[in-house]
């Protein structure tokens, strides 16, 4: 006998699913493509005031005086606030010094310019690429030694040493950071651009001393976050204070592009000298890395624990990592924080070792798969990616020997990620008229969250996706976790599944008598409630709901990360392998992407279309960071020189090449439950592209992005052309 006291939350068997696992276009796709979707940076209610921030032009300075009288005199200015008063020390360029609000954007900008600040400039460090110049700003963590690396290196058949580096890059959210706040009496309404609808109100409340219960947060859409949009931030706090000082009128502050690139988060750099050895068969025996990075003033960024990446079980290891504190904007989580850097440094070192051994790197990655935590996953994904790349036919030993200046090469990168579901609550409501609402205090980061919530509800209730009214993006809905760490899909799919199963069970109980049976004999299929095995006995969905009279059903469902593993709806732990195929013009040093092949698993895939879109987007970000992106700072003046979209370069459509996605959907992966996919596909691309360039031109280009100057320098160091 089935246990009727515990609802059956399990995902339906693969073969029985009608909605889950089928590709579905995102529900808000047309809205977004047409511009009908309103982001909080778009909204402009009557009476709204424009806020603006005065940023510090210096990398490190003490404010000696600040005079706001000029700003206060400008017509339309409603409030001027000093953030950094005399005596305060500013630690990076772009940092907030004062804020203003005004009735027009122009008046706000004029007011910012009219504030007179005098600074005492202080010593600064804005570059960390040469650690020799970092002095006491470099702080080494303790050395970690496992096994006997010295002995292993001595006994190794092959050892390779190399230098590798990735600069600081930024998030480049299309919608910059910011929000609008109205603080009227004891009530605060907040329209942020956030990855954390349920939590950001409390964050703002702590800063302005208002209880979270009195803060209402609303956001329909967000224009990119990538890990950089969790807190209310100083500009959120300033918008609130300016609103209060302006009689409670809403004040909107969104950072301009320059400030966005300077202070709204970035990905830490990573540089390192890496030594890796293998036995005569190509089995990796020892690893030694001396790495450093900066995540801004706090140093931070990478940690020694990430090395060697994925190939964790190298038996002999010596690992040193140094954090460099710089006077630059602080790092924030960047789509798989620190994994890209670790992947790039590790996979580059392995590829260089393979080249030294004159072995095919595919074989080296494969024969060392037992050093990973998921040997079978990496083995099968490496093989699948190689098959899609036609590796055996297209790969050559390092240095394309073909004629002409354009050389072609292939390279591999690997990645790993967690992605188990976060804490999430869902309220599912079935109305007597048959309409259905599911409410979660979640957010759709652009990943398709709204759509997969509807798909899960539709699957459970036997309804089409269009029949589900998904309500997210508001703090009045049940709390759901922040969207970070690829935790959203696991969290919201599980809570939605549970809430809708609970609601359906209530509905079945209500209609069972009229169908002359018991609830356990009923199921919801194709807009009907039917008796299992007897389709002649059924009610339409609407007829069934009418049986509720005037009482709606409203049931909760919760994903609790502590109990989720044994419930089986979601889990964590994924692998990913990417192969890049590039052409390099060895006369100009310009790299052109041919293909980027991405093979990833993510457990049970609810919506293959949006899952694949995640991989496409992540691969595009990898092309950007591998070939174009870098924050350029000048140590003479302490300034970032390219806080713009002109010389802070991103790929355009012609630069991206073909992206081939393979989602590893299989019964074995499916039975693991839902796993997040937002971050993992952003990891392997940097390494794959860097390795493909090395394979093409016959020499390592040590530092990303692989720009013309670096390619030509690498070729010159090798002597002659490929």
């Amino acid at each position: 006998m089935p246990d009727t006291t515990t609802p059956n939350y399990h995902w339906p068997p693969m073969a029985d699913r009608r909605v889950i696992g089928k590709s579905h276009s995102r529900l808000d796709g047309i809205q977004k493509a047409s511009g009908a979707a309103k982001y909080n940076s778009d909204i402009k209610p009557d009476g709204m005031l424009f806020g603006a921030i005065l940023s510090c032009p210096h990398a490190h300075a003490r404010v000696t005086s600040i005079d706001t009288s000029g700003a206060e005199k400008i017509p339309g200015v409603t409030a001027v606030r000093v953030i950094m008063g005399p005596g305060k020390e500013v630690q990076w360029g772009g940092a907030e010094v004062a804020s203003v609000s005004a009735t027009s954007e122009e008046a706000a900008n004029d007011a910012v310019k009219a504030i007179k600040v005098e600074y005492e400039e202080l010593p600064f460090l804005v570059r960390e690429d040469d650690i020799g110049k970092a002095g006491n700003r470099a702080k080494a963590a303790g050395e970690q030694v496992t096994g006997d690396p010295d002995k292993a290196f001595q006994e190794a058949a092959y050892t390779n040493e190399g230098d590798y580096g990735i600069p600081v890059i930024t998030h480049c959210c299309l919608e910059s950071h910011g929000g609008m706040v109205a603080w009227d009496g004891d009530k605060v309404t907040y329209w942020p651009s956030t990855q954390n609808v349920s939590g950001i109100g409390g964050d703002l409340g702590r800063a302005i001393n208002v209880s979270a219960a009195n803060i209402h947060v609303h956001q329909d859409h967000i224009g990119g976050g990538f890990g950089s949009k969790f807190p209310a931030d100083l500009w959120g706090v300033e918008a609130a204070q300016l609103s209060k000082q302006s009689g409670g009128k809403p004040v909107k502050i969104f950072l301009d592009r320059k400030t966005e690139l300077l202070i709204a988060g970035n990905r830490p750099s990573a540089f390192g000298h890496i030594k890796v050895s293998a036995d005569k068969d190509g089995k990796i025996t020892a690893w030694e890395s001396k790495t450093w990075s900066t995540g801004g003033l706090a140093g931070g960024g990478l940690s020694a624990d990430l090395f060697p990446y994925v190939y964790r079980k190298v038996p002999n290891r010596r690992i040193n990592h140094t954090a460099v504190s710089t006077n630059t904007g602080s790092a924030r989580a960047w789509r798989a924080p620190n994994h890209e850097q670790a992947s790039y440094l590790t996979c580059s070192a392995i590829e260089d070792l393979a080249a030294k051994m004159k072995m095919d790197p595919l074989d080296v990655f494969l024969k060392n798969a037992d050093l990973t935590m998921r040997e079978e996953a990496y083995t099968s994904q490496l093989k699948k990616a190689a098959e899609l790349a036609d590796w055996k036919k297209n790969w050559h030993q390092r240095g394309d020997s073909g004629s002409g200046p354009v050389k072609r090469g292939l390279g591999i990168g690997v990645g790993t990620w967690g992605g188990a579901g976060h804490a999430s609550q869902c309220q599912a409501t079935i109305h007597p008229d048959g309409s259905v609402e599911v409410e979660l205090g979640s957010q759709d980061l652009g990943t398709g969250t709204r759509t997969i919530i509807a798909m899960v509800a539709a699957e459970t209730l036997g309804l089409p996706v269009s029949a589900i009214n998904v309500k997210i993006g508001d703090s009045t809905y049940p709390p759901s976790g922040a969207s970070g760490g690829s935790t959203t899909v696991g969290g919201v799919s599980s809570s939605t599944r549970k809430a809708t199963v609970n609601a359906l069970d209530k509905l079945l109980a209500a209609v069972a008598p009229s169908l002359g049976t018991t609830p356990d004999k009923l199921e919801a299929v194709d807009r009907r409630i039917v008796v299992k095995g007897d389709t002649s006995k059924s009610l339409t969905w609407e007829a069934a709901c009418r049986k509720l009279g005037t009482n709606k059903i409203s049931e909760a469902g919760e994903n609790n990360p502590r109990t989720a593993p044994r419930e089986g709806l979601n889990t964590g732990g994924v692998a990913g392998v990417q192969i890049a195929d590039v052409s390099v013009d060895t006369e100009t040093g310009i790299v052109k992407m041919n293909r980027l092949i991405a093979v990833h698993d993510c457990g049970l895939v609810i919506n293959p279309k949006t899952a694949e879109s995640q991989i496409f987007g992540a691969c595009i970000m990898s092309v950007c960071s591998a070939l174009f992106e870098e924050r350029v700072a000048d140590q003479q003046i302490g300034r970032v020189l390219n806080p713009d979209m002109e010389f802070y370069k991103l790929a355009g459509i012609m630069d991206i090449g073909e992206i081939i996605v393979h989602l590893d959907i299989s019964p074995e992966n499916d039975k693991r439950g839902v796993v997040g996919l937002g971050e993992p596909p952003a990891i392997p691309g940097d390494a794959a592209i860097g390795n493909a360039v090395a394979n093409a031109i016959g020499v390592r280009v040590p530092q990303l992005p692989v720009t013309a100057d670096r390619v030509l320098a690498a070729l010159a160091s090798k002597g002659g052309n490929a």
Partner: protein
Amino acid sequence: MTPFEYSSPASLNEALGLLGASWSDAVVLAGGTDLISLMKDGVFSTKRVVNVKDIKDLGGIHKTGHGLRIGSTVTFDELASSPLVRGEYPALHEAALGIASPQIRNMGTVGGDLCQRPRCWYYRGGYGLFAMKDGKSLVPNGENKYHAIFGGGPAYFVSASSLGPALVALGATIKLASSSGSRTVEAAKFFVTPSDENAREIDLKPNELVTEILVPSASGVKNATYEIRQREAIDWPLAAASVALHMKGSSVDKASIVLGHVAPTPWEASQAAAGLAGKTISEDTASQAAEAAVAGAQPLSQNGYKVQLAKVAVKRALLAAAGKAHTAHHA
């Protein structure tokens, strides 16, 4: 942005009457793709902005008895789409297409391309045209990967003009008008390396307006432009070359080679061009000319690679002009 007066005259005379004795009195607005950002970033301010896009006489591309007349408000898109340009002046056509954003091609004008200010990040960051701090240029010890490899300072910026090298190579002249009359300047002399940082990079006075560009007939003149950009998407070239080859039979009678984005002006490689006289264009002669074109380069700490790029651009432009490459594609 500092408040300013905006006027949109319908006639050239009216426009010229609105210009002033200095740039801070009045400035000309056409496509606005450069001017607006200069003003919004606080790098430049003025009392009056004179929009010239409504002046009919400044538009249009047509044939004259001697060649082609291109109005100064002709957009890059009009230039790139013109069959007259594509057929006879591939060097111009390719240079216009190299401006890779359709938005910029739709808005930006030929006159604006010639008059735009440098993209040097120190200049745009408020350090002036010569990137000075405490009496010293920031460029030699700074971030100079995009800076000049010719000229030797103190102007280390590169001319941003996309069309300049092609116009110089083709022997174009530029017509300028002011309320006291008009004058014509050879394209090669229009671009100047300023000797002080308050000067302009062009021979244009504040009360003058570029009205038209006259390009001599290029019938029988083989010409091409080759650009090397990091991105295929909108990007400033790292180096570019425009070449024009006046032929005598299958060999070069007189050549012109002009480099772009490597000097404060379009940079004429006269000796390299002279060396081609009497030769046919082959992989070898093109390589020799390319080598000669960069002979006087003075690279800075980070831009030695641009010497190589300039060389490749010259070689590929020559081969493309001679029909020895499939097309002068953009790298």
